């Protein structure tokens, strides 16, 4: 379970910012005053640290950090 979560957290920023990008490449809908592409990039500036933090916590709980 933890392993799957870990893989997911590692893969997510890459999928969202590289693989999925062609589908996010659009103007509508405009969210929080940002056209969709810009909103999407903005969103992942904020979400990526959460992924990193999740990985950090997982590693810590497994005693993988010193």
């Amino acid at each position: 379970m933890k392993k799957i979560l870990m893989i997911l957290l590692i893969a997510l920023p890459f999928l969202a910012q590289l693989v999925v990008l062609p589908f996010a490449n659009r103007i509508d809908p405009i969210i929080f005053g940002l056209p969709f592409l810009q909103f999407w990039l903005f969103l992942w500036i904020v979400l990526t640290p959460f992924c990193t933090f999740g990985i950090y916590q997982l590693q810590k709980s497994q005693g993988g950090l010193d």
Partner: protein
Amino acid sequence: MQQGNLTALSITMFVILTVVLIGFLAGRDKATRSSVEEWSVGGRRFGGLLVWFLVGADLYTAYTFLGLTSTAYTAGSLAFFAIPYSVLAYFISYFFLPKLWKVANQHKLTTLADYARERFDSKLLSSLIAIVGVLMLIPYICLQLSGIQDTLQVAGTGFINVKVVVITSFLLVALYTFFSGIKGPTYTAIIKDVLVWAIMLFMVVSLPIMHFGGWDPMVDKIVTEAPQLLTIPNEGPKGIPWFITASFVSALALFMWAHAATGVFTAKSADAIRKNALFLPLYNIVLILVVFLGFIAFLVLPDGTDPRFALLALIQTSYGGIGQGLAYSTIALASLIPCSIMAIGASNLFANNIYRDLINPKVKGAKLTMITRGMVFVVIGLALLFGLVFPQALVSLQLLGVSGMVQIFPAIVISLFWRNQTREATIIGLLVGLTVTFTVYSTGTSLGIYEGFWGLMANFASVVVLNPLFVKKAKFSTNAVKDYLFGEKSNKVDLVRKGA
């Protein structure tokens, strides 16, 4: 060029001089230049916050602000490639920088090339890495130079001789870097980062109100009048495939730069680096906003404005006087401070990995420290010389900088995880990667994909295919760094250190 603005010019000059003064004061303690380790990585004593400021100051340069706005001005949303690029760069760094830092700390290494030498027992590899690093970094320092030059040109035309002032300010930076080492740019980096955030936020709030009556009317106007700016083209020489590969390759390359590595090695613990990887993406909020400044410039400035001056002209027409002065000094600082860190990185590579590893292996102690520090003048001098005398010769090197730097990724990062990676395969891979990148670039056969991507693929392929040919020797040989990374003994050493 039209007449500058005297108020803006005086403020900019005042801020530059103040920062230079602080740079000197930072080094009044003699210990800052007592050894290469003290001078270049501050004795590895910097905590999380200080490293954040330093790496932030390092990577968000005048060129970032001027280059991104001019890309946004001419090529619209392609400029946004900088966002996934740097967000992913920090994310990726989380997985290898703490490990790299630990090896460097254990073995008192101050450059990436040092690590490659110890890891592979190869002075050939370390000097190759150093040559690539210095060769790619000098044009990058030149870019910073053009940052401050453009600023002074717009504000100071009719008042000062721009070239003389640029040369003087860079010599002052070289002098304080020589004197204070990494402490100089660290303290001034805090001033620069605070100014960057304050000024950029101020501009992003005030410019839409001044020109369009608010943020939403501005976005509406872009959507109706220039929708092409808001999305990435699907094809063409620079479309979506370029955007994705450029982001990815640049993300891998970011911490291969000598100045980024210098920033990282100043950290006092692996955990400080992890925290940095966590929080650095937030710095990019500024970047998104900066790209919008380029869009504003597109709507506001008259046709035919030189894209290179898009941001500077926008600031001059919108504010003038004090606002312009503060914004310009921010850009000037964003040019001078990274330049200082870059010069430290390049000097370190030159002295440790070209001079010592290749020319005079016996040099050590005080003499090596002196040579490292003295190289600052050579590096900044070369950058000035090329930047002012042959600006055109550097354009290709600047464009290829990232694609070139990323080729050391297998030598530096993959080798942290792959025990049996051999020196021979790594060296051939590096050379193949560089050759492919330059060939693709000079023949224009990139097929809409980032040049460095082709090079890196060729590099990886060579390492993987050739490695089995040389692996026998690598399997049974070991050394201190390999022991530390992969051996059983290393854990004990670690425990002892922690207990002590």
